[in-house]
């Protein structure tokens, strides 16, 4: 590993370098951003995006380099290395854009014009149709301050219950399952570096070698020890590192988890003392798993009984073992139960709440953890409180200086919210912050229809995302290195991203936007501060006493380099790197087994749609690709959508490697370049979801929802595959 010297962080006004974190995933790799030469007035507008970051770092533009930090140890992937390109992208928005009708082009407007227009339209819509006629959609990439103020803006300035965010698409199943098992959900309840000495790690539906590459450093010990187990229908780069790769059919992960629990009992690996002292409910969970003997599990999942036994032996006989879940196992209509199935296995082996072993979920988006804690979720208030809890409402409303009864109740979850747009009794206006739902939401064709039915669509973004391009009003906002703000990484550690460069003229922070709208809607100016640290200070008070208690975290402590994992209930509290060591967060201190059974995917293959499609990510792109598709080096490496297909399946469809294919489901169709992969199951195809327009994988996906978490089923739907040249008539597509 490269060793990179710690940067010197100078006082804010003069500094040209800032120790900060990557703008992308939840690993939040440490990096140094070097700003452009402040004395060069033309530094910003230069057209040097064609150059790699090293070449320009000494000259005029912002650049990044990695720094030592526990999560990335000085490593960066290609996305991180090229992230400075975003600061220099010619696609950057620097003026608000407005149109009176959707068939007109977007035209530049002043900030005052744009905000006046939005406020006036919001007032009119709410006067005519009620407070819930305006909805808000947030994102897991927003800082804690933005997520917090967005939730407050919705509940106080708009008085609407209709707010949710794209984290519903990522973290909700793991959060629901973690909460019901442990009483509290924090992605990794231990520092990521605890994995460094693990002898065995089971990754369920996580492809870290592509989604957070520097993370794989923490798996090296387990891999070298022959203890890395990867559960994935595809032979991913992560699976290639594993001693054991289990390939369940898409949508059968819960059956596999039940089968492994069965094996744990049958082979005598049950941690009986731990069960007696630290858990409840094993019997009811076992009575389900008893029906999943390995041979039956094999028949449903396709995972050999012998491999199931080997996996459990590796975990149970390791001195130090961890079980981690990712989106592959969570993004299902039975995602919460599936995660409960994995937690049940971890509890049966006695892993959670002990030093040197554990269960965790690998958070995806940059602030996927903090974003789910501070009130942009339909059912939540800051501090990971429930909005239907009277005590939580009383506390938060007192911090906000409003009557508790003025706070709305729980609203619709993300898919249901998008589905209600423009419908009778549904919202007629939508404000989007930090999300690109036209690409990232399931059944994307339907989302486009719903957005088109709105009276008003407002999108705040720093580039013209696919969603922004369809809006009535686009508000150009600042981005990562241009503003201060905190994020909470995958291990629950609160991080300060520091401003390194001056934002381009014309861009304003999301906090400014919320302030501008709130004051126009009649809110007192001081209720919506624009300074991130001031907002954070208020967030600390709002979170105090809640499950995710940030009250002891300060910018000062973060600047000093303290490693603060929440909860941090006091200013002198050292933080909580490892949770649950003494007790779990339920009232009785015990973890709960949850009796869950396999249901299978919401949509099965049939004669018309004989294949199963699963969606995911490639290394070079992040989420909807709105950012990474602007980076030439990343586009060069991964320019377009592809579909991974077994060579036999491709041949039966009349396709060869490199052909353009149409993949069609009951909901729509998408185009992708065929990539023949001998290691994929012949009944499965894989598509990355980062690509726009006709290449959107989410045109196919099934919006069937998990009954508990309201997570849509991104990871499995029935499709057929045809050559792009042949005419295709998808049945019932809309």
């Amino acid at each position, binding site marked *: 590993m490269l060793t990179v010297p710690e940067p010197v962080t100078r006082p804010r006004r003069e500094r040209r370098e800032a120790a900060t974190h990557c703008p992308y995933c939840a690993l939040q790799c440490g990096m140094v951003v070097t700003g452009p030469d402040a004395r060069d007035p033309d530094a910003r507008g230069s057209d040097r995006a064609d150059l790699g970051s090293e070449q320009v770092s000494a000259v005029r533009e912002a650049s990044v380099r990695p720094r030592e930090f526990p999560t990335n140890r000085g*490593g*960066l992937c290609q996305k991180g290395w090229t992230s400075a390109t975003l600061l220099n992208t010619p696609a950057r928005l620097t003026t608000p854009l407005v149109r009176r009708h959707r068939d007109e082009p977007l035209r530049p407007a002043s900030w005052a014009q744009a905000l006046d227009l939005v406020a006036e339209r919001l007032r009119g819509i709410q006067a005519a149709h009620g407070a819930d006629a305006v909805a808000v959609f947030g994102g897991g990439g927003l800082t804690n301050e933005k997520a917090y103020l967005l939730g407050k803006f919705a509940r106080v300035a708009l008085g609407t219950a209709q707010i949710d965010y794209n984290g519903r698409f990522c973290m909700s199943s793991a959060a629901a399952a973690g909460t019901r098992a442990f009483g509290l959900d924090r992605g990794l309840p231990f520092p990521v570096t605890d994995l460094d000495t693990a002898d065995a790690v089971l990754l369920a539906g996580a492809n870290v070698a592509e989604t957070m590459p520097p993370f794989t450093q923490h798996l090296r010990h387990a891999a070298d020890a022959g203890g890395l187990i990867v559960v994935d229908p595809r032979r991913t780069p992560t699976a290639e590192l594993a001693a054991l790769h289990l390939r369940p059919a898409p949508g059968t992960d819960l059956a596999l988890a039940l089968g492994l629990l069965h094996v744990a009992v049958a082979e005598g690996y049950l941690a009986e003392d731990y069960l007696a002292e630290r858990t409840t409910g094993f019997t009811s969970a076992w009575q389900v798993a008893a029906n999943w003997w390995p041979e039956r599990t094999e028949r449903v999942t396709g995972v050999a009984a012998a491999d199931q036994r080997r996996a459990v032996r590796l975990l149970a006989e390791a001195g130090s073992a961890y079980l981690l879940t990712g989106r592959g196992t969570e993004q299902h209509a039975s995602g919460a139960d599936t995660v409960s199935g994995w937690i049940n296995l971890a509890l049966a082996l006695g892993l959670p709440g002990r030093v040197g072993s554990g269960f965790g979920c690998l958070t995806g988006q940059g602030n996927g953890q903090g974003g789910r804690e501070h009130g942009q979720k339909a059912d939540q208030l800051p501090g990971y409180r429930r909005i239907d809890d009277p005590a939580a409402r009383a506390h938060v409303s007192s911090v906000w200086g409003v009557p508790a009864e003025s706070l709305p109740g729980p609203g619709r979850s993300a898919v249901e919210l998008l589905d209600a747009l423009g419908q009778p009794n549904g919202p007629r206006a939508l404000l989007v912050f930090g999300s690109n739902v036209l690409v990232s939401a399931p059944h994307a064709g339907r989302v486009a229809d719903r957005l088109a039915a709105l009276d008003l669509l407002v999108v705040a973004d720093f580039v013209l995302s696919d969603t922004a391009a369809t809006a009535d009003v686009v508000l150009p906002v600042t981005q990562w290195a241009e503003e201060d703000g905190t994020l909470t990484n995958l291990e629950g550690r609160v991080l300060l991203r520091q401003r390194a460069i001056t934002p381009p003229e014309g861009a304003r922070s999301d906090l400014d936007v919320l302030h501008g709208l709130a004051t126009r809607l009649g809110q007192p100016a001081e209720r919506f501060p624009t300074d991130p640290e001031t907002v954070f200070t208020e967030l600390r008070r709002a979170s105090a006493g809640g499950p995710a208690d940030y009250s002891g975290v300060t910018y000062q402590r973060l600047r000093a380099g303290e490693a603060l994992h929440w909860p941090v209930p006091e200013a002198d509290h050292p933080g909580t790197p490892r949770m649950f060591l003494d007790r779990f967060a339920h009232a009785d201190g015990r973890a709960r087994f949850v009796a869950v059974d396999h249901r299978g995917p919401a949509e099965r293959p049939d004669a018309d749609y004989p294949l199963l499609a699963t969606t995911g990510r490639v290394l070079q792109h992040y989420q909807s690709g709105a950012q990474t598709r602007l980076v030439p080096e990343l586009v060069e490496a991964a320019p377009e959508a592809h579909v991974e297909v077994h060579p036999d399946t491709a041949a039966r469809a009349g396709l060869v490697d490199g052909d353009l294919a149409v993949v069609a489901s009951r909901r729509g169709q998408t185009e992708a370049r065929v990539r023949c992969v001998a290691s994929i199951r012949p009944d499965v195809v894989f598509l990355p979801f980062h690509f726009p327009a006709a290449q959107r994988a989410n045109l196919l996906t099934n919006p069937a929802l998990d009954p508990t978490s309201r997570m849509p089923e991104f990871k499995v739907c029935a499709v057929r595959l045809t050559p792009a040249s042949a005419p295709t008539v998808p049945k019932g597509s809309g």
Partner: protein
Amino acid sequence: MTRTAEVLPPPTTTGALRVVVVGYGMAGARLAEQIRARDPHAHRVHLTVVGAEPHAAYNRVLLSNVLAGTMSEWAVRLHDDGWAADHHVDLRTGLAVTGIDRAARTVGLADGSSVGYDALVLATGSRAWLPPIEGLCTEDGGLQPGVAVFRTLDDCARITAATGIGGRVAVLGGGLLGLEAARGLAGRGRRVTVVHPMGHVMERQLDAGAGRVLAKVLSSHGVEFRLGVGAARHVPGVGLELADGSTVPAELVVVSAGVRAETGLAVAAGLAVDRGIVVDDRLRTSDPNVYAIGDCAQHPGTVSGLVQPAWEQAEVVADLLTEAAPDAGYRGTSVVTRLKARDIDLAALGEVHVDVDAPDAEVLCLQDPARGRYAKLVLREDRVAGAIMLGVPDAAATVTHLYDRGLPAPADRLALLLGGALPAAGGAAASAGDLPASAVICRCNTVSKGRLVSAWREGARTADALATATRATTGCGGCRDAVCGLVDWLSAQESPDQPAPAGGPESPESPGVPAGESDESDESSQQNPVPVLA
């Protein structure tokens, strides 16, 4: 309609359908669960379950684990004590049903009471069949001392109590259940001999070659075999005398010679009974108010003795009785036989007795008795029609999946037949010199071998210098060894007694770096990364 005083009123709603299930085994318990999954508050169905055994229902599939000593009695219980009350089920265990009055729609119970029904479901299961061999049965039909069957939890306890470690056990019958019992007992230190009158074990599911290999594998776990010879007489305290005059010494004989459907009640009630209680696709007997599921039922094309058909039938009957799916029907279960025996992996399905020379099928067969492997695949019209997979566990999983889903078989038949027994595609990590120039060395930063070679030519002569020039190794660092290997290889190429370094039109012999190689990796190269974290 007659209602007797003993019938509990429906717990919530009057007018609910009164359903009585006779039998609280795997089929009856499953049916009760499925009815309550569809009607959790007993609005539609008032449910009574009658079981003759005193135990709560238990998982019969797992009895071989109990016999092998790897599971306790507790672990195989299907329900705990509060289950019936929690689920509005009137459960009566330890109580036999004495008769069915179809005209009155009541069942009589051994305690003299009776229960009225609107729909009756018989889930009475099956019992072990005892071959007519002297010394197995007492005059009243009971078992002689030193003889046991293997059907119930109590049988497990009897079998394990009857012998100690080193004790001799004869298992009469080399079918699936007999072999599971034999393996379990051998694993617990008993000296086990399987006596089977046919030429090879599991002759219904296996061809002779597979049967031989399986017997060999079981022998290596301590099980002995006497095949092709029947038992003539059991002499208590001595053992089994065989038809050829020899004797298998045994303190205990475990009879596992097949089962017979438990049809006594149905016969007495005048229902149509053949080998089992005859049912249609709605699982109805000859009386439309009486259903039968599981081992006691005879549905065309369904093999009895397995749990999967019973469970699927329970779902259909639950759909019908709760009206959750009034059109539900049962059309048979595709059977995959799996031997549940520690360290032995065997799956058999479909047509297995097809010869490799059969003109109308594609048949592959690999025999590897020395390593305990036997793989046979019967294909018709590109689909799996039958298979025997012994000792090739991951191939068994794949073949089963193809069979169940009717999917076309992969073109690479050998890979299908052997699964993970074949070397993985690509094999071990190639050395730096052998890789094509387009191979991605550093996946985290999409750096190909060609780009590293170019950087090396431009003066980056160490791994650190290459990292600075290309960012290779600066992600997860897993390709560090590969980059160092490349530096060594390039340096060796450059040494005086070697040809010029790779690349360029003048050195076409340099492996992996074709003439005019550029920095760029092509699209397809991303499929062939070097395994990192060696």
